[in-house]
């Protein structure tokens, strides 16, 4: 059965090639059919392989295709490996990806570059699958770059608006910083171990390097850098809110469910390296908690519905990083799975809202859509409940609780930070819900979701509710198929000393979440009078602006990096290096002018020149 593993990334790749070459001639329906069936086919193969692994109790399935490069001893191969960790990712990527493709067939209806969109989407799925299936870090890096490329292409999809191009470039450049760090990590690993093959590396690293050794810490930090870039964590989170310039299905697939989780995958996959570098692990956790708080505050002030969701994504991935940093590996993956469900759902539902509102994205222009768009409302609500971690009935509750439990065991402050984040999440999420769906209706809906869209929304809503069942905590019976499934790959989290027992912590977290939701209802559902007065104060407005701009990160980077760079560029306005070339050309031209002066058309000059030449030659002949 192993020999069909290659189909998983190959099917979307073929879809991309087909659409890239023939896309212009296909109609919308044909292009949609090709794209959706490619991803669905990949999903089917993935399910089959997973069943094979589960039934045969295997640790994984490998397939070696060919040797990619061979330079002396360094010979990375095109190998795919589907083990228990990558199963989770592959199923989410292909499954949620297929649902998003289905949704997008309606969303992009009428767009002039319909097939180009689906070509890019398929290429993205293929690259992302390469990342998670790669058995060699070099192949992983190839996929990594591929998803970066597709992110750029899709953010700037509507290229006729220059703002979209700027957003795409910003995304690419910022993630490049992270990619450079990751490349350094690969260099270190390749130099020390002579191979980039993941199983070999993960086996050799703990035996060769001592815990806390400098080189190990450096490598781990570099890998962390790559993860921070791709997953939009502090300090490289500035590109994700601007990336909302792309079509909503893109935001759903790339910037919610999959690409931004590539960093999580990387750290989870290379966990032996992190385990021998405790400093780096702490850094992962700190990055996580800082990001989730900063993004939470920023989400509170946004007006654009997609930007709220973007900051929310940054915040939730912060939770995943927090989990990875405290050693709660399976909790992080669990949260990744549930997050993929509800965040994709929220984005797609918001897409329906945006379409219905004539492409209006400002929440304060919406209102009262509860009755007008029922399916959208109820699915959006399901997703919001999951995001806020509503106790018991949402998947988000269980995954977030697993993370908080792990955080509490390591450091109480981390737990407090996570808890504060829970409150913030509830607050901004339901602010979004109440402003958009409740209150006075400002505009009439224009375009209702199609059956395809509704199917996707409802499926994801159901998953958001029942997804918690994948890993129930011990005090609820310990039914945790996901946890058990991940045991062979990820180290089990040792139960450390927690300040209080799990059920108590769960209760506290539930109360915080509910109070966040309640506060949102009070402030944005009922709209008390004092809110207006509070918001009109100078301090309030300044704070609002600060949070709206992502807590000043963009401004900071502008001052620290962009202005000096542009200033340097202006200094070099008459480019020094160009000067060398232009100087050479100018010199040659001068020489030409001088030589041309000998061609003055005067007979006597020519004769004199001949005589002079004769004298010279004779002299050379005699004395030379």
């Amino acid at each position: 059965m192993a020999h069909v593993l290659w189909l998983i990334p190959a099917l979307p790749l073929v879809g991309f090639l087909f659409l890239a070459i023939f896309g212009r001639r296909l109609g919308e329906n044909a292009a949609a059919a090709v794209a959706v069936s490619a991803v669905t086919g990949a999903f089917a193969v993935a399910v089959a392989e997973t069943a094979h692994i589960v039934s045969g109790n295997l640790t994984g399935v490998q397939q070696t295709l060919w040797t990619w490069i061979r330079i002396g001893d360094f010979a990375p191969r095109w190998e795919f490996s589907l083990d228990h960790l990558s199963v989770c990712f592959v199923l989410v990527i292909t499954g949620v990806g297929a649902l998003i493709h289905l949704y997008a067939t309606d969303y992009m209806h009428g767009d002039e570059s319909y097939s180009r969109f689906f070509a890019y989407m398929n290429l993205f799925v293929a690259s992302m699958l390469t990342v998670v299936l790669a058995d060699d870090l070099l192949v992983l890096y190839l996929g990594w770059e591929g998803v970066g490329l597709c992110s750029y292409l899709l953010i700037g999809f509507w290229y006729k608006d220059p703002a979209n191009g700027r957003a795409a470039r910003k995304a690419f450049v910022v993630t490049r910083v992270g990619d450079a760090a990751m490349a350094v990590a690969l260099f270190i690993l390749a130099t020390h171990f002579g191979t980039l093959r993941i199983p070999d590396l993960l086996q050799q690293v703990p035996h060769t390097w001592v815990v806390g050794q400098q080189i190990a810490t450096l490598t781990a930090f570099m890998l962390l850098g790559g993860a921070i870039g791709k997953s939009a964590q502090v300090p490289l989170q500035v590109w994700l809110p601007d990336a909302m310039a792309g079509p909503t299905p893109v935001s759903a697939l790339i910037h919610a469910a999959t690409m931004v989780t590539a960093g999580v995958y990387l750290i989870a996959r290379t966990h032996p390296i992190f385990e021998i570098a405790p400093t780096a692990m702490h850094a992962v956790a700190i990055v996580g908690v800082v990001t989730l708080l900063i993004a939470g505050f920023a989400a509170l002030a946004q007006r654009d519905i997609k930007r709220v969701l973007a900051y929310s994504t940054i915040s939730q991935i912060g939770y995943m990083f927090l989990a990875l940093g405290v050693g709660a590996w399976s909790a992080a993956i669990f949260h990744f799975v549930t997050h993929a469900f509800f965040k994709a759902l929220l984005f797609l539902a918001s897409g329906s809202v945006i379409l219905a509102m004539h492409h209006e994205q400002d929440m304060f222009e919406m209102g009262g859509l509860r009755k007008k768009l029922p399916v959208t409302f109820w699915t959006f609500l399901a997703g919001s409940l999951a995001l806020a971690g509503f106790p018991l009935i949402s998947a988000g509750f269980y995954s977030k609780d697993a993370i908080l439990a792990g955080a509490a065991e390591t450091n109480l402050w981390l737990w407090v930070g996570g808890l504060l984040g829970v409150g913030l999440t509830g607050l901004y999420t339901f602010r979004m819900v109440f402003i958009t769906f409740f209150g006075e209706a400002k505009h009439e809906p224009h375009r209702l979701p199609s059956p395809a869209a509704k199917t996707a929304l409802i499926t994801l809503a159901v998953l958001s509710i029942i997804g918690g069942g994948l890993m129930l905590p011990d005090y609820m019976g310990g039914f945790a198929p996901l946890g058990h499934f991940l045991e062979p790959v990820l180290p089990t989290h040792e139960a450390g000393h927690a300040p209080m027992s799990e059920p108590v912590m769960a209760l506290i977290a539930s109360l915080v979440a509910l109070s966040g939701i309640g506060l949102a209802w009070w402030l944005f559902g009922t709209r008390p009078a004092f809110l207006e007065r509070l918001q009109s104060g100078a301090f309030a407005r300044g704070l609002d602006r600060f949070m709206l701009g992502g807590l000043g990160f963009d401004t900071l980077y502008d001052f620290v990096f962009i202005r000096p760079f542009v200033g340097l560029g202006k200094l070099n306005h008459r480019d020094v290096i160009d000067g060398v070339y232009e100087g050479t050309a100018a010199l040659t031209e001068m020489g030409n002018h001088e030589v041309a002066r000998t061609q003055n058309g005067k007979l006597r000059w020519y004769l004199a020149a001949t005589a002079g030449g004769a004298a010279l030659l004779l002299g050379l002949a005699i004395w030379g």
Partner: protein
Amino acid sequence: MTQIPFEQGLMLAGLLFALGLLGVMVRRNLLFILMSVEIMLNASALAFVVAGARWGQPEGQVMVLFIMATAAAEASVGLALILQVHRLLHTLDADEANRLRG
């Protein structure tokens, strides 16, 4: 048999040649330039005759005959060109005929 110093004969030819060269370079009138060219040709003919006399061979004189034929052809064509130049430019100034300048 007269004894003629060989080097002196060649030097004479060289002197005449140099004088002709001087004339070519200094004079602006096309006619004078052509005249100076004739002087130069004549000087080279003298050199050939001296050499022929040195070895007592007829080849020197044969060469001089060819030189004279060349000089005749070249003088006639050159003079015809001078007539054309005079018709076109209404002057015989060599510096005026500089339309082939680069």
